[in-house]
């Protein structure tokens, strides 16, 4: 006889060797907290939303003052409004995605909706990183065209800058801006690689396996 058939025959009779939980054991479990992948992705996503929102509050007053006096006030206001509209759009998508995750779907559908959810979060991060880079580039280019005025303002607002002569100010200022941006983006990319890499590796592998069956 086929060995799998043999195993199938014995499969049911093995049941008495399985652990037996009592009514109370099971009842107690209902109070425990879930630790499913979806819950983790959800928590991390909320963390991401908070992170980008809070970050906006950390722009120091002095740099706001500089931007105001250099003539970027209206530009920044428009950029902010656009940003928050897009942000609201993401929150809506985000909510809709989580709503669509149902544990009673087929295995394939469930995996697809989790991966889709993850994709939305990924786009959100791409958008944030991309927008930050673009904004940073644009602002620095603008600064560059007005570097004399910028130097005066910087000396006014930060005492340390007075020690730097105007000739070397341009290179010191823009190189430090560049280094900070690169480090910042690098850290964010690393963070996502590690966190979601861990969470989604198995899910992706299994999803590909199912896709393969259908080909």
């Amino acid at each position, binding site marked *: 006889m086929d060995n799998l058939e043999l195993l199938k025959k014995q499969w049911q009779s093995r049941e008495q*060797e399985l652990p037996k939980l009592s009514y109370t054991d099971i009842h107690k479990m209902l109070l425990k907290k879930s630790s499913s992948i979806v819950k983790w992705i959800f928590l991390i996503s909320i963390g991401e939303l908070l992170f980008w929102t809070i970050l906006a509050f950390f722009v120091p007053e002095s740099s706001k003052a500089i931007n105001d006096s250099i003539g970027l006030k209206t530009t920044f206001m428009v950029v902010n409004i656009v940003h928050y509209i897009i942000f609201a759009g993401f929150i809506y998508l985000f909510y809709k995605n989580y709503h669509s995750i149902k*544990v*009673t779907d087929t295995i394939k559908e469930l995996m697809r909706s989790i991966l889709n959810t993850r994709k939305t979060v990924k786009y959100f991060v791409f958008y944030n990183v991309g927008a930050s880079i673009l904004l940073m580039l644009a602002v620095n280019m603008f600064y560059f065209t007005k570097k004399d005025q910028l130097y005066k303002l910087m000396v006014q607002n930060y005492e340390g800058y007075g020690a730097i002569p105007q000739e070397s100010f341009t290179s010191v200022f823009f190189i430090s801006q560049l280094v900070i941006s690169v480090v910042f983006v690098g850290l964010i990319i690393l963070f996502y690689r590690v966190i979601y890499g861990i*969470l989604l590796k198995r899910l992706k592998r299994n999803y590909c396996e199912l896709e393969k069956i259908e080909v």
Partner: protein
Amino acid sequence: MNKELEHSFVTQLEANQNIVHKICRLYTNNSDAHNDLFQEITIQLWKAFPKFRGDSKFSTWMYRVALNTAITLYRKSKRTVKTQDFEGVSFKISAEAYDDTVEEQLKLMYSGVKSLNDIDKALVFLYLEDKSYREISETLGISEVNARVKMNRIKEKLRTILNP
């Protein structure tokens, strides 16, 4: 109302717990992970229970949620080592048919099944549970024909594991 729901849920799960234990056995390698997965499946079942309308059997609905949890939602703990724990696995064979080599073969077969990937394992599990290909395809979300083809391939794979 909530108490009633709770009672009805726990009673039904208690009666059908073997299904969940079998899945836990297949997808984990030690008793800690087994209990961990059992608990996660219980929570997922409980969360989905209010939407369970009773148009299918409780056990049928359970297969889907439990397998979904094992394959999709459960995060394998880091402690999971790649050793297979056979102590919990022995096969009762009726006295007249008892044969050491049969017992050996069954163990080998079971370890073969355990070594399959998550998806193949789910297919074999449902097959061993005597589910129809229709039910298998509806649980996994693939077509019936493909489930059949895949199952034949897995059988072939298991045969080579057993008779190298």
